[in-house]
């Protein structure tokens, strides 16, 4: 079913997709077995003349067979899913990898305010660059996004990156991604934020390294051409 997913261009997107597929196969097979069983039972035990239903007398062993063993199987499968999920989750939300680029993204009714720290690597200084709805990042680099909001709760959702994170006013939440393909992709708001919620569309431009360097030079024509913000 993950064929339906949008293209994945993020390093951790594959982890999410594979957990999805794992769950899909586990519950898909379980679901089919269950439904086939129900329809078979309905057919086989339909009402027929002269055939009386079997009484349930509450013996232990039928209980074990019908309820306890299947429930135990479900429990084992649950734990399997949990462990697979925990692994993927830890990769995404656990320790953050060392980032090459830091960008601040703030939600505002109904725009994305994207702030680059500039060559000095610090926010709130004069060389900050503020863009609306345009996020530019280099390919194959770890990008740290600092998510915040100016008014209500928004949600930073980049389908191709499998990245979604709510942005809360009054807090700064860190997220990261590493894009593996260049191109221009859409950013969407995933949390209802008012009447213009549906118009809150932004763009993620993933540049090749050379292109990104050019882009930086265009923005900051100063002598310093080092990739911005050598931070960790």
């Amino acid at each position, binding site marked *: *079913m993950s064929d*339906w*997913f*949008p293209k994945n261009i993020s390093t951790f997107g594959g*982890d*999410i997709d594979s957990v999805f597929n794992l*769950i*899909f196969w*586990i519950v898909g097979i379980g*679901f089919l077995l*269950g439904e086939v*069983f*129900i329809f078979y*039972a*309905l057919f086989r035990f*339909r*009402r027929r003349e002269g055939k*009386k*239903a*079997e*009484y*349930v007398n*509450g013996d232990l062993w039928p*209980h074990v067979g*019908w*309820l306890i063993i*299947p*429930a135990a199987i*479900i*429990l084992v499968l*649950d734990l399997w*899913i*949990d462990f697979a*999920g925990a692994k*993927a*989750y830890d990769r*995404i939300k656990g320790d953050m990898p060392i980032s090459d680029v830091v960008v601040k993204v703030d939600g505002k*009714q109904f725009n994305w305010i994207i702030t680059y720290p500039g060559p000095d690597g610090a926010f709130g200084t004069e060389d900050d660059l503020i863009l609306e709805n345009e996020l530019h990042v280099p390919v194959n680099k770890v990008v740290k996004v600092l998510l915040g909001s100016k008014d*209500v*709760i928004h*949600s930073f*959702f980049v*389908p191709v990156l499998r990245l*979604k*994170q709510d*942005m*809360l*006013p*009054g*807090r700064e*939440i860190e997220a990261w991604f590493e894009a593996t393909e260049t191109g221009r992709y*859409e950013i*969407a708001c*995933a949390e*209802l934020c008012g*009447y213009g*919620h*549906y*118009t809150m*569309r932004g763009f993620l431009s993933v540049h090749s390294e050379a292109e990104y360097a050019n882009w930086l030079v265009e923005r900051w024509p100063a002598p310093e051409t080092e990739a911005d913000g050598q931070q960790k």
Partner: protein
Amino acid sequence: MSEHGNGHAEPTSFLRKYVFSIDHKVIGKQYLFLSLFMALFGGLMAYYMRWQLAWPETAIPGAGWIPEPMAFGGIIPPEFYNALITLHGTIMVFFVGMPLLLGALGNYLVPLMIGADDMAFPRLNMMSFWTITTASLVLMASFFVEGGAASAGWTGYAPLSADPIHTGVGWGLNLWIMALALEFTSFLMGGINFLTTVVTMRVPGMTMFRLPLMVWMQITAAVLFMLSVGPLIAGAILLLLDRTVGTGFFIPERGGDPLLWQHLFWFFGHPEVYVVLLPGLGAIMEILPVFTRRPIFGYKTIVYSTIVAGALSFLVWAHHMFVSGIDPQIVMPFSITTILISVPFAVIIFAFMASLWGGSIRFTTPMLFAIGTIVTFIIGGVTGIFNGSAPVDIFIHDTYFVVAHFHFTLFPDVFLGGFAALYFWFPKMFGKMMNETLGKVHFWWTTITFNMVFIPMFLIGAGGHMRRIYNPLQYDFLKPMQDINIFITWSAVALLVGQLVFIFNFFWSMYRGKKAEDNPWEATTLEWAAAPTPPPHGNFETVPTVYHGPYEYSCPGQETDWQPQHVEKGSVAA
């Protein structure tokens, strides 16, 4: 001054008998009509939303009557769309699901099933009905105040809901909060009543483990509701003060914390899902034994599973908030409890399967709906695993995958289960049989179109289609899915139109239906076996005594294949 069991005399005036009645059967029917009436509104709103999603910003057929500024010649603006999503959710959960399954079925059935002549507090019962009626009026009135109705989603996340400047909605949202508060009050009164009734008014011999499972489900639901709603009432008071007085409990600039509202909402919201779910499953548990002609499999196991699920439901709420910025440390524990909650529900489903096996199944309309509920509910159950897995939820949170998932749990439960219950208990309630042919047409039409609406939603959800989007054509990556959106809309129209069959059948049968016998389904529980049809004021002519469990069908060595609870079994042949 009698709040006494059979103390109150039968009223004679019209007002006392049908309007301000304190008879639990009349109140149950009042709840039924209220919930069906509100369901019409909820359905109409769904239709407007679906049309807007399929053909954005075009005039919606049948929306021309909506006055400005809600709609302009049938074209709805985003503000009104947001009001529709908010009110659709609120109405369907709080004003259809709960009144139908707890209010109507609970009120009508619980006293009859335990052999009581009425609820423990009949006047309180009447008050709870009129409170929710007031709440419904307040909610509908909120459309007509300046600024329009609440438009912050049925979850009302702060600070969008906490300050009118964010939405432009003024009193509409205040009224929404008040309507919810009244609704909560109503069901708190109802919950106190149910629990007290079941604890104190069972007939002799009706031990807790001889209660029909419906009663177990009702009281578990009541306990869950009463224990979970308190913090949200506190939160709602604070939210209302934020909006009206100008305090800042949920507004970060004034020292508040918007995340707290989400915690309070979902601390209530998750148990609330089971509050709605359990009575629907309870109806299925009553119907299955009757039409398989064998006892339900694993009665006690079902009861214990329900209690375990109920207890666990208090420990899973943060799974609604995996991407909302909560501490990652608490995400995995919640993910684990969430996925574990599938175990008790799986046990209940396995018990249903085992109950079918070895039965002698009669495919009547209620039975068809019951089976339909189980078959579709399984889809809702298994798709919950996807949402419960924290990494997967990062992607599918707030997409149509979630929308499809919860409609696959609540629709089978509230509507398919509710229809099963109505077709099943209609003869007892109104003394007439419903038409079987129309019922079967209704069943097939409803289940098929329902699946046509919501299965494609899983696909577009997996494609990343966000929920609560006014116009999906804004996004390039959603444009290829527009054909599916149109398909969903046509299916939804078909689903809604199909309900006319039910409405016709319901009213036609009430007047023209075949007269029902006391126990047309040959059932064993007290409401069928011991009470006349329809039950008189006071329910039972003589107080029944209960001798065995509720589902004694096809007992070996008995003459008939059903032994009513109040009739002692004959000598069992060795």
